[in-house]
């Protein structure tokens, strides 16, 4: 089941010309124009103007203020922790997500359908509930006698939890569609399982894996609710950027919050664009 798919941009479709079509097409174009206008207005009211306001607020005090706000010790430490954790989580998901997708597609065992459905739970679960859930199992008082609260490992586990579905769900449909003929041919020629996977299957999965890892990265960078509880939000040690931004808002320092937000958004966008380029190159080669 696909939860998130990147929509492909379709080519324009040519419609056959008939005498009756001409006024219909004019109406269609007008309708499309109105539709586009409405969509743009909706997007502006909800997304574009508010985000623009954040960027504008962050530059209110000039570049000097912007950099000072971003580089305050706790904000900077949080940025480092956030980015490093997000990369680590994306990499783990790259591997584990593919493994899980492989098992879900190629393997059979009782209860597989249940497992398949539960994969999406971190996506549907409210983040505060995820936070409670993780503190229960991995915080102090855990029945497993481990305590990851107030530690970076707690942050890492929380991020792994919320990013679980992303790579799995982008790789699964590709695996499902994959024609197994080439793999069988490779086997009959004597190639081992890992070689077959590495040289035949993996190149086909690469674009999906990278796309999923990118989604996992952006989700991890943005995460707030689930990390809040288990990390203890120790400044300089376990605070993530979203929590720092929240703290700035609550301290009435909206300009500082806006500066850190803009910086975070910029990084997320740069990474997404970079991944899109990498993915396109991988798709072309494959």
């Amino acid at each position, binding site marked *: 089941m696909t939860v*998130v798919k990147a929509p492909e941009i379709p080519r324009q479709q040519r419609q*056959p010309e008939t005498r009756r079509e001409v006024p219909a097409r004019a109406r269609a174009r007008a309708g499309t124009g109105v539709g586009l206008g409405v969509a743009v207005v909706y997007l502006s009211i909800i*997304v574009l103007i508010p985000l623009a306001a954040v960027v504008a607020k962050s530059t209110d005090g000039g570049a000097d203020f912007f950099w000072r706000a971003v580089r305050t010790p706790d904000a900077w430490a949080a940025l480092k922790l956030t980015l490093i954790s997000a990369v680590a989580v994306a990499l783990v998901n790259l591997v584990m997500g593919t493994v899980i997708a492989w*098992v879900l597609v190629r393997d059979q065992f009782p209860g597989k359908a249940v497992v398949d459905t*539960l994969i999406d*739970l971190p996506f549907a679960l409210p983040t*505060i509930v995820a936070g409670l*859930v993780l503190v229960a199992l991995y915080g102090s008082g855990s029945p497993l006698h481990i305590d990851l609260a107030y530690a970076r490992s707690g942050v890492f586990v929380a991020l792994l939890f919320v990013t679980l579905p992303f790579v799995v769900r982008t790789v699964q449909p590709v695996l499902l569609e994959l024609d197994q003929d080439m793999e069988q041919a490779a086997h009959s020629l004597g190639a081992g399982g890992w070689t077959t996977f590495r040289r035949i299957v993996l190149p086909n999965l690469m674009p999906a894996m990278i796309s999923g890892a990118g989604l996992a990265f952006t989700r991890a960078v943005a995460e707030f609710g689930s990390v809040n509880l288990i990390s203890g939000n120790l400044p300089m040690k376990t605070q993530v950027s979203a929590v720092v931004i*929240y703290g700035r808002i609550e301290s009435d320092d*909206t300009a500082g919050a806006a500066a850190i937000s803009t910086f975070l958004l910029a990084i997320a966008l740069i990474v997404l664009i970079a991944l899109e380029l990498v993915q396109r190159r991988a798709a072309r080669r494959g």
Partner: protein
Amino acid sequence: MAKYSLRVITLGYLAFLLILPVGLIGWRTFADGLSPVIDALTSDDAVHAFRVTLIVAVWAVLLNTVFGVGAALLLVRGRIPGKRLLSALIDLPLAVSPVIVGLALILVYGSFEPIGRWFGDRGVQIIFAVPGMVLATVFVSLPLVVRAIVPVLQEMGNEQEQAAHTLGAGRWATFWRITIPGIRWALAYGVVLCLARALGEYGAVAVVSGRVVGQTQTATLFVEERYQNFDTVSAYATATALALIAIVALLIAKLLDRGALKRSEKH
């Protein structure tokens, strides 16, 4: 052999990361039996919180469904410039942290900002009231309906719609009788995802809500508040209720997906 070890690794990973934590909360919730849980969930504050959540979620789903269908049609069938840009802008909310969403809305619709003050002068409060929370929820769940519909619309092709046109059907009739039924499984799927996301929103509403008990305190904010007040019974009960709602939503979505699969197999 490799197959077996992969299965073990997968199940082990999922057990520790997903199944055990969620199961533990369920276990702890019902540790003292069913009745404290029922009491907690039927308390005035809990009921109010769920009602606020539902109102906000329904509004968000309605708005995003209308937008979603329209935007999907534009992206797939429309002849417009800048489709890639439009698609990227629609996906933008996925990359924005919920806290940043809240900040962005405060900066535009807060009572002392130009736009917010315009509304305030006309008696409409946005931030610290339900409209602000609806805006926040719409923002975070914006792409979900669009992304669910687009692939199906693409696959569907527009032959049937063209046929309807040549037979004299108007645009609205074609839309309601051909397009919508054609995408109904994907549409329902997108709506369910959007609803699940909207019901579970926390970070963005935490910033724009005024936490007014009974009016702007959602179920997720209620969980937070009860937890901070050492009322773990209510916190866990509500958390489990929200988790169950999420699981039910996923099951419904899976059924819809299978329905869509069967339908495309028929063709």
